[in-house]
Every structure is written in C-alpha cells, then in structure tokens.
C-alpha cells in the first residue's frame, strides 16, 4: 500500500521519528508549540516529547541560533524553526560566522550538527519581508549545506538527512509546497546531499527549477507538450553541495539550459548553476542559457504586480520555446485549468 502524505505531514513524521529514535534531537523556534504548530509540521510533538525538547522561544533570532550552535557543540541535534526565511537575516552572524566556520577554524575539534528550517512565503499579499528566497546567501558560504525539497517524499528524506548530518543544514521550505501531496514511505530513509533528480526526460531544453519553481517547470513541460519542444526537468534538491554533473549531462544532450529560481537572479543560484555548466562544457558543446527568477524589485503585495513578479509555468514555457527556436516567438500558451495544480507524487 502506497501511503499518500502532505509535505507538512512528511516533515512532522520525519521529526517525530527522529525524536523518538534519538534523545539528542531537540526542536525549538518561535511558535513551534503554539496551536497552529507551524502549519502543523510540529503538531503534537511538545506533548509527546515534553517542554525541554520542544519549546517556543523568545523573539531572539540571533541568540536562539547561537544557542542552537552551543547545543550542537554539546552533542545535541537541534532543529531551529523559522516561519519565514526573511527572519534569518537576524541570525546571520551565528549562521555565517559561527555555525559555518566552527569545524574549520577550530581545526576539526568540533562540529555543528544543526538544522535551520525556514519558509519562503508567496501570495496572500506576503509582500516585501515575507517572500524572500535567500538560499543563495547561504550557498555562498563554505561550511553550510542548503537543501530545498520540492515534494513530500524529499521533504521527509532530506529532513532526516539534515538531522543526521554533522554539519549545519539550511532546510528551505516553501509555503505553497506545504500543500503538496505524494507518496511517502513510513520507514526512515535519507536523501543524500549532492544528488539531483531528473523528473521527466526531454531532448531539446533542460529546465532546472528551484524550490516551488520546480513545480512551475513541471507545469511548463506540460504546456510545451502541445508544441514540438521537449523539456527535461531537473530538481537539484540539494543546492549545496550541488550535483552539477546531472545538470551537465542533461545540457550536453539538449544544448540549452534554463534555470528558474525561487529568488533573484543576480549573484543567485541560477548564476551559479549556469556558470558551472558552462565551465564544464565550454569548448565541447555550444550551450544557450537563460535565467528566470523574481523580478529585480521588492516583492509587491498587490496581485496585479505580484503576478508579474514571479515566473510561472506559462512564462517559463514561453522562454524555453524561445531558447529552442531562437529569437522572440511571442508564443505564450493559454492558461489551462487542469495544469493549475500539479503534484509530482513519486515514487522516486
């Protein structure tokens, strides 16, 4: 029997199973023990494991991140939850100067096994400070691992891996992905760092989608099916370490790469992926590239502007079409009701 769970349930189950198995796992953050339980991802855990292992915190992002580092140094495996990724800006000193560097600058005497769960928001007027995808900030820093699972199966497997990992892991969620449903095995399993997944093969163009944009890329692939353009879609899963080989292999075949990020393009994950693919293939294979991401502006809450702010399946399909055909073809597929919501359920 294949079990279907939501992304939220997958996170909750991974946390629950890890806490049951290992008394060193602790869970804290603003509101983890409140009635809403972080969209349900922490529901019931405070009751089950007690207030010493599961607790809400003061609004003190830097100190609580520093405390997580201290707990990790003492042998615990803390999971620190932030309901918005934007709030991590208050914790950058501890993440970048301490968590990332402790193992190295202390000559390997210590390590910092901690998970920082954070959520990217979108729609419902999230606006300037509830919508940012800042994963590239963390990809920049040696010593941090970054993962952005896009479906319930990976949500569970990546969280277990992140908890067991002996390095700090920034675990990037997306509020819209929380609603995804898919096949999630009950047993423990891990999605190892540095391994991407090809979701649907195609010969003409490689689409790499990050976080929620992966689902938009999958929808774009469906829109392209009405044309003669075949898209191959890749989910990098782990952004750091990044499995560039899987992307290179695909682009070697297609000769075209479009990276769609859930963040800005400037100095971002899309810049990194495109550059590394070209470094691998230059002189061997001519490659046409394109990047898509947030508009280079602050996120506006009003729907008329917010719609323009994000790439979507249709604009991605249109860009991919242009990349294959060359020039501007002004092809933009009409909205299709049945492609509004697409879930990629696995099994993988």
């Amino acid at each position, binding site marked *: 029997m294949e079990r279907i769970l939501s992304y939220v349930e997958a996170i909750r189950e991974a946390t629950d199973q890890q806490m049951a198995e290992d008394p060193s796992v602790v869970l804290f953050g603003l509101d983890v023990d409140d009635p809403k339980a972080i969209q349900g991802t922490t529901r019931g855990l405070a009751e089950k494991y007690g207030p010493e292992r599961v607790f809400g*915190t003061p609004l003190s992002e830097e100190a609580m991140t*520093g405390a997580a580092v201290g707990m990790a140094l003492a042998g615990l495996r803390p999971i620190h939850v932030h309901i918005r990724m934007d709030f991590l800006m208050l914790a950058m000193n501890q993440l970048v100067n301490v968590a990332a560097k402790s*193992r190295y600058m202390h000559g390997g*005497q210590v390590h910092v096994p901690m998970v920082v769960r954070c959520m990217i928001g979108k729609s419902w007027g999230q606006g300037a400070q509830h919508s940012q995808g800042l994963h590239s900030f963390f990809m920049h820093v*040696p010593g941090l691992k970054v993962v952005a699972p896009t479906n319930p199966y990976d949500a569970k497997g990546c969280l277990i891996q992140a908890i067991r990992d002996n390095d700090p892991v920034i675990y990037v969620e997306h509020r819209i992905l929380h609603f995804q449903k898919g096949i999630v095995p009950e047993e423990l399993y891990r999605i190892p760092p540095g391994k991407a997944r090809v979701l649907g093969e195609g010969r003409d163009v490689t689409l790499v989608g990050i976080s929620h944009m992966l689902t938009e890329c999958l929808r774009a692939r469906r829109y392209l099916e009405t044309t003669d353009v075949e898209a191959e879609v890749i989910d990098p899963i782990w952004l750091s370490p990044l499995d560039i080989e899987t992307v290179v292999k695909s682009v070697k075949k297609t000769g075209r790469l479009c990276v769609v990020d859930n963040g800005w393009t400037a100095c971002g994950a899309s810049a990194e992926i495109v550059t590394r693919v070209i470094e691998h293939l230059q002189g061997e294979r001519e490659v046409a590239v394109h990047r898509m991401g947030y508009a280079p502006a602050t996120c506006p809450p009003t729907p008329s502007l917010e719609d323009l702010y994000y790439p979507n399946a249709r604009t991605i399909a249109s860009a991919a079409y242009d990349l294959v055909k060359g020039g501007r073809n002004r092809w933009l597929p009409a909205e299709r009701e049945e492609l509004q919501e697409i879930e990629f359920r696995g099994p993988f």
Partner: protein
Amino acid sequence: MQKKKLVKETYERFYRSIYRIRRAEEEIARIYPSDKIKSPVHLSIGQEAVSVGVCEALRPKDVVFGTYRSHAYYLAKGGDLKKMIAELYGKATGCAKGKGGSMHLIDVGHGIMGASAVVGTTIANAVGFAYALRLQKKDSIVVSFFGDGATDEGVFYESLNFAALKQLPIIFVCENNLYAIHTHLLRRHKDADVCGRIRAFGIPAEQIGDNDVFAINERVKAAVSALRAGQAGPFFFECLTYRWKEHVGPNDDFHLGYRNYEEARPWIEGDQVRRLATLIPSQRRALIEAQVEEEIQAAFACAEDDALPEARELLTDVTGD
C-alpha cells in the same frame, strides 16, 4: 595545620597559573616584532586575575566560552601551552591545526570551547551549551567570559533573557576593562551601571571592583556551589579590571591619548602577579618560576621547529564529508 597547608597550596596553584599566563604573554610580546607569530594577538596582561580567579573555581569538566582575548582563560582552564603557541605560529601542531589563530583557541579536552572574533558571539553559544548540559543531566556548569564591549550587543541581552527564562547552569563573567577598543564605556552607555541592567532580567549580579584574584575566586566559587546544588541559574559577575597593553598587539598605547597612565597606575600598582608572588616563600617561588619558564621555552622551541600545515589542509574540515 591542615588548613595552613591548604592555603599554601592554593597560593602556589594560583601563582603558578597567573605567572604562567603573564610570562607566556610577555614572551609573545617579545617575539611578536620578529613576525614569527602569524596572528593578531589581544593580550590579557593586567587582566589575568579574572581568568585565574574564575577558572580555579571550576572542575576540569566544566566548560568555558570566551573571546578573542583568549590566552588567559585558555591557560587558566588548563589549555595546552605548546598547542597554543604553535597555533599562534600557524603550525600544524597548533590547537586548531594552524587554522584558527590566537582569536580562535580551543581545547575541548579541557573544557575550553572555541573563541570568536566577533564581539558577543559566544555568549549565545555558551547559553545553548548550558541548556544541553541540563537536558543531558550532567552536573557540569558553563562560564561565559566577555568584555564590557559585549554588553553593547543585542545578542547579549537576548542571551541573558533566555538563560534567565530557563534558569540555566551558567555564570556570566564580564571583564570590564572600561574600553571597547579605544572607546570608554561612558561614551557607549548613558549609565555605566552594568549590574543594574542585568538585574532587570531577574539575574543576581555582583560587581567585584578591585581585580582581587581571591575575591573573584570566592564569589565565583559560591555561585558554582549553588549551581551544583541545583539552585537556579544564571549568575552574573562584573569584574572590573584593566588592560595594560594596546587593544591588539604587544605595545603600550598611552601615547594615543584615549586614556592616560594616571588611570592605569592603581591597576598596575595592584598587580595580582606581584601580590601573589609575595605570598609564597622565595625558594618555592623560584622553583615554580623555573618550571614555568622551562615550559614556556619548550613551547616556543617546539613552535619554531614544528611544520606548517600541508596543502591538503586547505580544504580539510570545511564540512565533515
């Protein structure tokens, strides 16, 4: 008779510790212009009494977190001198394999957690460590050392609040030397009453005003006993002290004009190294000093001879993979 012996032993232990720190740092200052030391050094000369007084109240398994002015508490807590000097020289035998430097000394085996160059940073780490110790039902305690500069930082107050909320087994030790680099406390705060601010968090706070190594030790010992007996933490001590040398580097800096020698004079006259020396019979004193000198010489000799890290170390320990 028994008590007298105990006092004598205590004096000697304190003297050995404080003399070792003073002389090690004087040697660092002497060698520094040769450029053999590949690390900025923040000397504790003048402030050693705080580290010695506090660490002499601790057990080996207790844990200290500190700052980039790290030599004194590292040595006072039992840190390996050879590994410290090698670290300053950037050698592979250093306590951080030459990849940390003076500002990131660490000796986990002796309960000395890594220091940070960013002011205030390790206070939060110390609080988290104390949380873990209690969850793990260990009877060790944590000491967090920091300077008065850290009391300007937001993370300091956030950490105090959490430690008080959770009643953690931690002792905060503020080494108040009046200056954050070159800026006086009263140019950074309207009110210099550090302890008053701390009490607002519901934390017992006490100022120890004269850099007296025994007074510091007595007060911290009482707090340690209370924590070990299961009394709720945290405790806070503001230890007034004075840095004789420049903020960073081996020299005096009275010529800069941000402070003057008259301010320093009472602290220098009250030097705790000299005070402890007078409490010990001269023969015993000579023996202790000779032993310490030998250890220091050996440490510098090793650091001179030891190898630099190999190229493969550049990418080792970035992550655990």
